[in-house]
């Protein structure tokens, strides 16, 4: 729902990084989005194309990787990938779990010229 505000910040961070690395053009931006964040990758790219016009990152392709929800079971000590809503260990059915991944929201890397 709040993808525009977020997209503006992606542009800001990537422009800063591009300047820092003296890049002429940013070709690709790799972003990790955890499933728990509820953000829609398609919407981010759509806003990005409009909001990045005239900036250093104009025309860059966003490579948005959805990070699945990953849990660690304190009972059987196994790590599993589960669907949202199923907060139970799929191996032992235990419910004493710790969330390891799925709420990421970061820019991981950029491909530049």
């Amino acid at each position, binding site marked *: *729902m709040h993808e525009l505000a977020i997209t503006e910040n992606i542009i800001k961070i990537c422009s800063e990084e591009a300047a820092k690395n003296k890049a002429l053009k940013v070709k690709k931006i790799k972003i990790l989005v955890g499933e728990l964040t509820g953000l829609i990758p398609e919407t981010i790219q759509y806003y990005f194309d409009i909001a990045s016009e005239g900036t250093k990152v104009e025309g860059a392709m966003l490579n948005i990787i959805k990070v699945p929800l990953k849990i660690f079971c304190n009972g059987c000590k196994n790590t599993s990938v589960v669907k*949202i809503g199923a907060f139970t260990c799929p191996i032992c059915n235990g419910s004493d779990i710790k969330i390891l991944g799925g709420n990421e929201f970061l820019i991981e*890397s950029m491909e530049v010229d």
Partner: protein
Amino acid sequence: MDIKVVRQILEWNEDCHKELQKELNEKKVLMVNVMGSPGAGKTTFITNVINNLKSEFKIGVIEGDIAGKIDAEKIAAMGIPVVQLNTEGACHIEAMSIKNILPEFDLDNLDIIFIENIGNLVCPAEFDIGEDIKIVILSIPEGDDKVEKYPLMFMKSSALVLSKYDIKDYFKFDENRVKNNALKLNKDIKIFPVNSASGYGVEEFIKWFRNYIKR
């Protein structure tokens, strides 16, 4: 050429959140972020808690709404300093908005600030706004499946208030389903069944809440 970036996209919000926390700590003001769906009973709950604490503590309120000032007027009618924050369409409050609004309050003369966030179970959970604790209000009519559907909100909250608790039986609300799922996501979450209209359960909540007050 590939360059490593690894920067949190919400870093601007995170920095501002920490700055606010520091300032409020110095002033010994407890800030509470109250979240929940539209109609969950956030305002009624806050009002009830204020009525229970206002003789002992100095309290202020930030009322977040997309538009209008209905809730702010209710709080102002109680003689409590209140600032209306209209997000004009935005689905959540950000730390920067709180930073801009804070000068409206006399922090040397306040013990507690309640922020009533925008009615929404999704977006507000993603933004820390300078608060010490987050409280989520889930009302019985919303259904007992909400923890599974909106996990982040319940992961991040210190307390879950089950509001409109008196009508639980009419809605065949499975309280254990909510409790079990909430505790799975967040083993430290405290759960309080409350009926704000009659005051049922509020005392129990306040007993817990007092631990966070800084003076």
